[in-house]
């Protein structure tokens, strides 16, 4: 994370620690002193560790000066090594997760260099990412900078070059920025493999990860340096308490039958007032569609802000995004509406407050977003939660409580990603080849592949050499070939193709949105645009548009004068489930608030929803840690069962599918499923199982994995998920569009593999990843185990209870057209309010 330069003096109250004996930190202190600052203890600690040749992880909140700790530390290490006599060349590789961050990172590292001539004479910084032009890449190759800022993909490409060992021959240090972001992803696995490769090329290499605080920092260390070196690695904490104020907007009057999306816009006047009181506000939403809606609503509410407002999400064109970022930096923006696209990034300076629309769903996300504000000298970070339905008020309170207690979630690194291994094997083969046993030993030094068995390794080598173990199935295929005990890439053309495929980013088929008169607006998913007809109006990049023509590659649009009846693109993904920590905290809050006298100590948010909880306990019962609540209700449209495991949306999707499948196995029936973060619903024309014993069996952990695989129609899901795996393993051609003869969809390749090479490990990986990513299998497993130890209470409710109502609303929403479901839910909520009587 970038150095929040202006805030440094206010926090630098700690005594200056002793300098290194060789005095090499003296220029650093001078640079700090010139600005009236002093280094933090953690900064000098990292300098010392680096100078002494130790690796480790530095964890600190957003915007506390991690960049300066690492960049100056790397310079200190270089100075300490000066005896080696290596002059010039690449000294430091700085890995950043987003190429959009590279330019800012270069600037932040460069800043102190001019005054550090005594220790870093002639040092320069440059970036090499997917955005770097061919010309710039060539110039880089002729003259490497001392510090190279790059992405995991770009680093892998460098490692695949013939002369990789030359390029990295003077490398001393690798810094991995935002390590927590990479950690639980395949790019993290790719980074682990690349780091281990670099260590083989440069045995003395030192690596540091810069991370936000995580519950499992030990894993973060082990993944960065490899499990065998973890004991010797350092874990440095920047224990700077950042002042953070979190408040929640509470709607008046509070409705008792909440449903997602409904309440949010009712808070618009309060949101406008909150934005009005601050100079610059960053408004975060959880999805891109929400961002579009809120941007539109805010602009309609305050047309006078329109010049000082911007929309920022992953589908908006890069140029429009940078304009928003520049506006934030220069302080000319009143407000920017963003999604997680602005979660990361070097400091944006004068943001006074952050608004979070919808529950933050996780504590680490809340901290990350809150950390975007209050970087001005002496400022306090301020975050305002804007719940989109009443129950989210409890989630906001739970998140606030967790922040106060200092707890945060874990991020578990991935293991056994065969696709990454297959890609890495070819990468190394491109660059001078490898001996099998040496590369295997190297790969096993990473955390990701520490437990790699011989059979899997054998399979990966076979996959690269012959396509797969079924030799006859892959005639004429060889990506790598063995010569005198070493494996090499089979041809230069294959090496070129491989490099191209490393850089490609997977995603759903997207379509560019362009003005008819010229200029790009961004990209939307093809599935959305292909449902529109010419003349249809929609909202995108914060503008009302009308579709003029869609020619398969580009959606040509004009500005729409009418601003009503606009459709909003739905983008896949982006809906994060409520974290385990938060859902447990929600149950605590409910328990405490409804205990005798609890109302006096309950947080404001929870006090506001007490009437809702009161009806819940009257019509059904309150959820708690020791009981699984099951509600049954018969409506005009059929029988409904609501189950409340409090395990997050993804787990509930999996559980609902599992239960439906287990019911259908004994009694054929058609059930419809719906879920949210608190529970799930099954409904159908016939009565759904109602006794407790039967529910215990339906949710039993016995045969869990087999049943899940069987019920999820796993082939279809795995087929859809295969895209990313196919790309990483080089099964779908990346890059060049010109090569039409070898274009194929991942789905098609999946079918051919399933039919003709069923033992392909990439298929097994796809199934495993579907389970984990679609349904958080580990968490689902834990949830089922926990349920086995709980009481199950089945309650028949006279009407839909307040807790069940939002799930039912989701169910109706998924079945009816927009106009119909709005009317239906509004009617229903009114009826229920009447039935509940005056509070």
């Amino acid at each position, binding site marked *: 994370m970038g150095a929040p330069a202006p805030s440094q003096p206010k926090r630098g109250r700690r005594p200056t620690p002793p300098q290194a004996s060789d005095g090499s930190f003296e220029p650093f202190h001078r640079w700090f002193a010139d600005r009236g600052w002093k280094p933090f203890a953690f900064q000098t600690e990292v300098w010392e560790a680096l100078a002494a040749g130790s690796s480790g992880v530095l964890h600190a909140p957003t915007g506390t000066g991690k960049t300066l700790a690492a960049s100056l530390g790397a310079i200190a290490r270089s100075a300490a090594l000066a005896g080696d006599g290596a002059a010039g060349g690449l000294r430091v590789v700085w890995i950043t997760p987003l190429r959009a961050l590279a330019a800012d990172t270069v600037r932040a590292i460069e800043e102190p260099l001019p005054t550090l001539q005594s220790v870093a004479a002639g040092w320069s910084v440059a970036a090499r990412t997917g955005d770097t032009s061919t010309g710039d890449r060539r110039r880089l190759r002729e003259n490497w900078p001392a510090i190279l800022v790059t992405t995991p993909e770009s680093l892998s490409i460098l490692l695949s070059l013939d002369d990789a060992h030359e390029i990295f021959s003077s490398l001393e240090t690798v810094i991995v920025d935002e390590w927590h972001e990479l950690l639980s992803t395949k790019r993290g696995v790719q980074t682990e493999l690349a780091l281990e490769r670099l260590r083989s090329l440069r045995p003395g290499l030192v690596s540091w990860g810069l991370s936000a605080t995580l519950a499992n920092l030990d894993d973060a260390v082990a993944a960065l340096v490899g499990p065998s070196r973890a004991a010797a690695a350092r874990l440095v904490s920047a224990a700077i308490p950042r002042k953070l104020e979190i408040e929640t907007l509470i709607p008046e009057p509070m409705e008792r039958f909440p449903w997602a999306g409904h309440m949010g816009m009712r808070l618009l006047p309060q949101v406008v007032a909150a934005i009005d009181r601050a100079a610059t506000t960053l408004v975060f939403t959880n999805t891109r569609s929400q961002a579009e809606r809120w941007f539109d609503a805010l602009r309609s509410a305050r047309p006078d802000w329109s010049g000082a407002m911007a929309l920022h999400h992953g589908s908006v064109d890069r140029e429009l995004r940078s304009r928003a970022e520049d506006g934030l930096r220069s302080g000319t923006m009143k407000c920017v509406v963003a999604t997680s696209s602005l979660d990361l990034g070097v400091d944006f300076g004068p943001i006074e407050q952050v608004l979070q629309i919808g529950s933050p769903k996780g504590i680490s996300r809340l901290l990350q977003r809150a950390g975007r504000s209050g970087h001005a000298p002496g400022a306090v970070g301020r975050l305002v939660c804007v719940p989109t339905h009443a129950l989210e008020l409890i989630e906001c309170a739970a998140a606030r409580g967790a922040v106060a207690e200092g707890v945060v979630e874990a991020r578990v690194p991935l293991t056994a990603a065969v696709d990454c291994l297959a890609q890495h094997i070819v990468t190394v083969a491109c660059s001078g080849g490898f001996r099998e046993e040496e590369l295997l030993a190297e790969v096993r030094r990473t955390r990701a592949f520490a437990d790699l068995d011989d059979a899997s390794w054998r399979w990966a080598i076979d996959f690269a050499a012959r396509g797969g173990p079924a030799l006859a199935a892959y005639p*004429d295929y060889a990506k790598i070939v063995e010569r005198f005990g070493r494996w090499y890439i089979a041809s230069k053309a294959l090496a070129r193709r491989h490099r191209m495929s490393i850089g490609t980013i997977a995603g759903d088929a997207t379509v560019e949105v362009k003005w008819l008169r010229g200029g790009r607006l961004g990209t939307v998913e093809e599935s959305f645009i292909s449902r529109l007809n010419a003349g249809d109006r929609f909202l995108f990049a914060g503008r009302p548009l009308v579709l003029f023509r869609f020619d398969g590659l580009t959606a040509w649009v004009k500005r729409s004068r009418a601003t009503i009846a606009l459709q909003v693109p739905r983008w896949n993904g982006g809906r994060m489930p409520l974290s385990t920590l938060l859902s447990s905290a929600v149950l605590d809050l409910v328990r405490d608030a409804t205990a005798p006298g609890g109302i006096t100590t309950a947080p404001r948010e929870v006090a506001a929803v007490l009437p809702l909880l009161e009806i819940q306990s009257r019509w059904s019962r309150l959820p708690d840690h020791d009981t699984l609540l099951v509600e049954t209700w018969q409506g005009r449209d059929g029988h409904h069962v609501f189950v409340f495991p409090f395990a997050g949306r993804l787990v509930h999707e999996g559980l609902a599918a599992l239960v439906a499948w287990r019911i259908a196995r004994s009694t054929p029936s058609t059930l419809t499923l719906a879920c949210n973060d608190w529970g799930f619903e099954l409904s159908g024309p016939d009565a759904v199982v109602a006794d407790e014993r039967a529910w215990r069996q339906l949710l039993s952990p016995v045969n869990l994995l087999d049943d899940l695989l069987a019920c999820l129609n796993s082939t279809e899901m795995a087929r859809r998920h295969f895209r990313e795996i196919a790309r990483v393993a*080089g099964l779908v051609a990346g890059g060049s569009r010109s090569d039409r003869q070898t274009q194929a969809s991942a789905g098609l390749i999946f079918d051919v593999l399933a039919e003709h090479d069923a033992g392909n490990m990439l298929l097994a990986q796809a199934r495993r990843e579907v389970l984990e990513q679609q349904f958080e299998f580990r968490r689902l497993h834990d949830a089922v185990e926990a349920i086995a130890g709980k009481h199950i209470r089945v309650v028949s409710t006279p009407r839909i209870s307040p807790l069940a109502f939002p799930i039912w609303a989701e169910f109706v929403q998924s079945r009816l*057209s927009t106009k119909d479901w709005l009317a239906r839910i509004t009617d229903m909520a009114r009826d229920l309010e009447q039935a509940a009587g005056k509070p």
Partner: protein
Amino acid sequence: MRIDVADSLPLAESSADILLLPGRAAFLPASATLLIGDVHLGKAATFRRAGIAVPEGSAQADLARLERLVATTKARRLIVLGDLFHARGGCTAQVFDEFAATRARIAGTEVMLIVGNHDRVIGKIPPSLGIDSCMRTHDEPPFHFVHEPATELPEPGRTCFTIAGHLHPTVSITASGRDRITDRCFVAEESLLVMPAFGSFTGGHRMRHVAGLRFWIARDDGVADVTRLAEFSATSVR
């Protein structure tokens, strides 16, 4: 033009003009002609040569299916509506040999190839393959056979029914709830039938539903008319 789904044998006695068969083929009872399109032989080999590990097997399975179709329909003639081969790079000796072997096993059937855009880049088709005639279009009233339906329509004013390939049509239908099924299909309008791609290792192009179009999902084990479902899926809000 009466298009029916073939459900029972013998096909030759059907009173329909065109019968749609399981296995992505069609049959013209009047002339005992079997129709297939877009086989793309050698596509997997093209991929492997480019360093993409696609297993062998799909082409062999397609050719075996073709042999079975010829045997069950007792077709006197086979018309391939273009793109029998995928690319020059994939036309290895093995690919040609496998086709020639299949050809030899259906020796009693005449084979006619309507040349497609992919076949053109192959260059001259070797005589050893046993293809009896190659042409760009073929007129045989009431039918007009062509590869690309849009570019080589019959002369205006002539009433004939075009049968074509090239598009690799697929259709998406929304089943109960949120499930969506996308599958290969036959698609027809007033005077045009477009065949699904016969080859298993071929992609698809999703047809948007327009009034007047008819769709049949074409699977190896059956054919199903989904015109109504496609209409419903196109109009329902998801």
